[in-house]
């Protein structure tokens, strides 16, 4: 196989990358300007606008608390995309970084609008603390301009950037297929991309000295200091110890450990929530560029590439871990524009077989045997996720077949005046029983899928797949009424409470959230498949001469409004309006002023 160039691998021009680096370093030096904009017209490709953000700061620009300073993205500008859909878990982002981004957002927006109007390619970049701002700006640009307005997709190139968010950030970017737009350069020993693997409390003693060194160094590239040696060693050791904890914890899980010890100990220590995402480019000391994408593997490499070959190296490496944070510009000029030696270690399985180039590259990064096993385990786990998906993909035809059978059950029930919901609830005929068996078969398949999603055992892209969204929505609309019928037939509301609160299976909650996300609907607005549960609940409260409370009346009115709308959009079936159906019987029992002509017309029409 021919050796690919950097451009072929990452789809971004080398000269643009190098330019981004020097712009990022320049922003660093003139930190009074919050955003720097520069136009670029390269030799080969079209023009681009480079946005860069300054990168120095004090302790509070890193950590908002003594631990890791991470905060849920819920309620922030990123809450819509940066979450896992089914589980509805929001990503965690570094709070200080988020605040910094919020601070410049307005200003950024004006400048970005201009560039978008000119239909120019945008590159966000930043060195050091500028990196996270560039990352957040890119995500913001993707969700505000690329997704709704089809703007040209941006690039985000960071140099020695700290980590930004947890595994859900990485998961969400993969799902949206945005990961490919992010490229992070990391010098082998640069400590900055590793800092957030340690809690502030473990490094606080030296942190100010270290930041001070960075500040002086950023102002004059030639700055050196021998006084920092001790602090550097302690700082490096603390960061490495914590990096080791999180890397080995993740590795144990990837390797399938079942020992409960792992779980117990997490109660006694602080584990970093941060995880890498996007493409990482590690720069070896001998001019190689090593790229990889797998988030877990990058985490392992962040730790293992900094291990020492013997104790005497400590001081040298620790000092280098600070100095190298400023070596990106010269490194890239030399190794990207000149003779390139770029090695990709994806797919990670190649580590196992004797691939000379990859082996050499890993040796150049100082990757030990144990580390290689961790990288392999990362690859293996990704492979397993794909296998899991293959397995459930192969069940699609079966799901489709059973859904068709249930659809014809639904259509056949129309002839009996009651619709399939009520027929199923009564369970009079053999067909109702058969439908119940089919319901259970489908529940088995879907519960397995949901269980895997909950444990993140399917590829990140799964929840973004059109086909699964469609079949999920179809499943939810046809089968959920049967679950509701079963629930109220067996009076489970007496045992456990209302269906929507206590009894609704995850398989419907998840699939509903998929649709709401895809269509950018408000949370909870695609509940059409379980409106009969609300009917059942309200039915017991509005009959038997009980005068309903105003609270109940509001619910009744809301529901009737929704039914009209859903019926209008054809997302609920006509069978709901059959003469003898639960809904119509209830509707008829309501006081006349609540009965709208629209629903009346529907009832008369079927």
């Amino acid at each position, binding site marked *: 196989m021919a050796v690919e160039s950097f451009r072929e691998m990452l789809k971004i021009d080398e000269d643009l990358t190098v330019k981004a680096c020097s712009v990022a370093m320049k922003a660093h030096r003139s930190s009074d300007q919050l955003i720097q904009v520069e136009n670029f017209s390269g030799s080969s490709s079209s023009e681009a606008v480079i946005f860069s953000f300054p990168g120095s700061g004090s302790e509070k620009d890193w950590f908002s608390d003594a631990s890791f300073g991470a905060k849920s993205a819920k309620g922030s500008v990123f809450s819509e995309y940066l979450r896992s859909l089914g589980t509805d878990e929001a990503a965690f982002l570094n709070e200080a970084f988020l605040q910094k981004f919020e601070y410049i957002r307005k200003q950024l927006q004006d400048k970005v609008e201009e560039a978008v109007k000119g239909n120019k390619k945008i590159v966000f970049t930043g060195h050091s603390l500028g990196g996270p701002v560039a990352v957040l700006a890119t995500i913001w640009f993707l969700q505000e301009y690329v997704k709704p307005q089809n703007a040209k997709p941006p690039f985000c190139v960071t140099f020695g950037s700290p980590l930004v968010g947890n595994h859900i950030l990485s998961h969400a970017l993969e799902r949206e297929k945005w990961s490919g737009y992010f490229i992070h350069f990391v010098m082998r020993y640069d400590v900055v991309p590793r800092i957030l693997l340690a809690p502030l*409390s473990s490094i606080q003693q030296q942190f100010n000295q270290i930041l001070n060194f960075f500040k002086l160094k950023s102002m004059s590239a030639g700055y050196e200091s021998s006084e920092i040696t001790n602090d550097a060693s302690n700082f490096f050791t603390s960061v*490495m*110890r*914590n990096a*080791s*904890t999180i890397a*080995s*914890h993740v*590795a*144990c899980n*990837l*390797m*399938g*450990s*079942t*020992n*409960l*010890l*792992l*779980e*117990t*100990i997490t*109660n*006694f*220590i602080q584990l970093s929530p941060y995880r890498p995402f996007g493409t990482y480019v590690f720069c070896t000391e001998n001019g190689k560029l090593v790229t990889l994408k797998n988030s877990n593997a990058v985490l392992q490499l962040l730790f*293992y590439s900094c*291990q*020492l*070959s*013997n*104790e005497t190296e*400590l001081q040298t490496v620790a000092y280098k871990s600070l100095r190298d944070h400023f070596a990106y510009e010269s490194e890239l000029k030399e190794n990207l524009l000149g003779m390139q030696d770029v090695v990709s270690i994806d797919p990670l399985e190649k*580590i*196992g077989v*004797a691939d000379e180039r990859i*082996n050499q590259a890993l*040796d150049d990064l100082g990757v*030990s*045997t*144990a*580390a*290689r*096993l*961790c990288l*392999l*385990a990362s690859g*293996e786990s990704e492979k397993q996720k794909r296998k899991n998906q293959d397995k459930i993909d192969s069940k699609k035809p079966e799901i489709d077949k059973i859904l068709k059978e249930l659809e014809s059950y639904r259509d056949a029930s129309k002839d009996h005046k009651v619709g399939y919901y009520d027929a199923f609830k009564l*369970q009079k005929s053999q067909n109702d*029983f058969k439908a*119940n*068996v089919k319901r*259970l*078969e489908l529940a088995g398949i879907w519960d*397995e899928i949901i*269980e895997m999603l909950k444990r993140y055992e399917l590829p990140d892209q799964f929840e973004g797949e059109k086909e699964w969204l469609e079949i999920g929505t179809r499943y939810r609309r046809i089968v959920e009424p049967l679950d509701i019928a079963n629930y109220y*037939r067996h*009076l489970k509301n*007496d*045992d456990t409470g209302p269906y929507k609160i206590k009894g609704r299976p995850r398989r419907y909650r998840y699939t509903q959230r998929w649709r709401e996300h895809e269509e950018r609907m408000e949370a909870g607005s695609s509940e059409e498949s379980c409106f009969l549960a609300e009917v059942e609940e309200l039915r*017991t409260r509005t009959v038997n001469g009980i005068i309903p409370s105003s609270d109940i009346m509001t619910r009744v009115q809301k529901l009737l409004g929704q039914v009209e709308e859903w019926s209008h959009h054809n997302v609920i079936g006509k069978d709901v309006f059959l003469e003898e159906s639960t809904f119509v019987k209830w509707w008829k029992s309501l006081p006349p002023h609540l009965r709208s002509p629209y629903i009346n017309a529907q009832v008369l029409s079927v």
Partner: protein
Amino acid sequence: MEAQASSFEIGEMLSTFLASTPLLSEAWRLCSLASTTAPMRFVSELIGDVGYVAFSGIQMVDVSEPASCREMVPLESASGLIGGLFHPLLSAHNEGEEPLMLQGGLLKLFFGCQNFRDQVLAVLEKSKSMVFTGHSFGGSIASLYALWLLCYLHSSSSSIPIFCITFGSPLLGNESFSRAILRERWGGNFCHVVSKHDIMPRLLFAPLLTHQLHLLLNHWHLSMASQQIGNPAGVLQVPDEDKAEFLRFVLAYLERASQLAVEGERREMFWPFGSYLFCSKEGGICLENAVSVIKMMHLMVATVSLDECIMDHLNYGDYIGNFSSQFLKRRNFMQGGLGPCSSYEAGLALALQSSGLAWQEPAATPAKECLKMARRSDRKPILNCANLAVTISKMMPYRALLGWYKTFCDESDDQMGYYDSFKQSGSSKKGHKVNMIRHKLAIFWNKVIRMLENNELPYDFHKRGKWVNAAHFYQLLVEPLDIAEYYRWGTHKVEGHYLEHGRERRHQIFDKWWNEKTALNGEGNNKRSEFASWTQDSCFWARVEEAREWLANLRSENDPRKKELLWENINNFERYASNLVERMEVSKDVVAKNSSYTLWVEDLRELKSQVQQIRP
């Protein structure tokens, strides 16, 4: 969910994880502090939110009795004296297994330290989580304290994380003890650090004589107490041939234990619990499989001198120091890549290297086998459980079919309801089909129980909601049919009544699971608005059958004393049943017009009115 085939050895990675945390080094620091400054007591310290309690390694163990120190005493009899300290643990014991046994002297030691309990609770109040630790015998006390606190917190259903780290501590109890801990899901709360050659954790496999133990203990205590001054641990002043003899003696028993552990009589044998972290100068490996722990204990000391074995009991400071800084250093066992090895082989080689066994040592091959075996048997229960989950999902249609059958019975014209219809179904095709399903489900659930009792399923299987619920639902569905079947053939006339003599074990076990679950969650009992779909007392019909017999007997009984007893039984049942009916905890088949219960109630009413007529 199919668990993937395992391609990684994890013992080494787990130990790397442990080594990178501050837990081991903090624990050891306090252990040595306790041994030098607080003999026979403990020291405590709050580090962050974590409360540490370290028991001194210097303890007065009662070894004066002539009986060998291998002797174990039942935990039940001992803890009965002080009011069920270990109640949750004892109730995790399965009938038919050996009782929970602990080393007598160590248990006594714990009871001797009882007055520390209030002080420990005071530390607990200030901490968000707690670590118990101790060197040597101190570790045994730490283990028992951790267990006691776990039991204590269990009954007050609070969940403060507890962790116990011992250094070179002797074994504590038997296999039942270890299993009870696993069943309570506490296996992950214990980590026993054992250095490569330390003889102490291996000692109790051999029936030692009192004076030998005395000599050893004295030697160790002296060295521990003097650690502060930095004295190198001296050498035991005993003739060389005696030392060799002693070591041969211990090793012979250790070897025998490692054979018995694999196949053989494990009763009255000491058995490890929790995880073991074996550490050497090269690193460490962490194991939880008990059989492989015993085997590794043997393999790691196969070729050493007694002096080394005795010294190593005092070397934990060096091991931990070295171990806790290993994360900084790159550790390669071969140049470059993985070469031709599979990832599993490479992992194994790494694990062996970390345990300090050289590739060419004779012990290396059995050690490799031992690690492979551990990995296999650790994974087997998980695979089995996953397979069972697949099987049970295939049983879903059966459940639906029974539900459908019940509706059919409940709504048919004869109005007998589920129980009586099945009882009288005779050779009807439907009845036959239902009976087949009943059999299939019974076979499945019996298999589940058999696997659980043979330890082929995860130890906490009976606490997993999915399975407890499934078993409970099965019971509600099928037990009425089991009862019907029993009475249909008049089995009760031969064997006695169902409740006492005919109830299958599975139902009793599922009762226990369900009761534990509901006791824990305190199921809210809302009043029902309609009859339950399934009668909530799955034995209801068996009680009806007995009540029917009482009523029949009453008519033919002449002895007034016996009559009185029968009336009492009948009235009790009547009260119980009508209460259930009133609370709608029964399904509607109970009150069907022609059900045996309805008939019985009528019968009773008739009898009562007759009695009334006789008695003016």
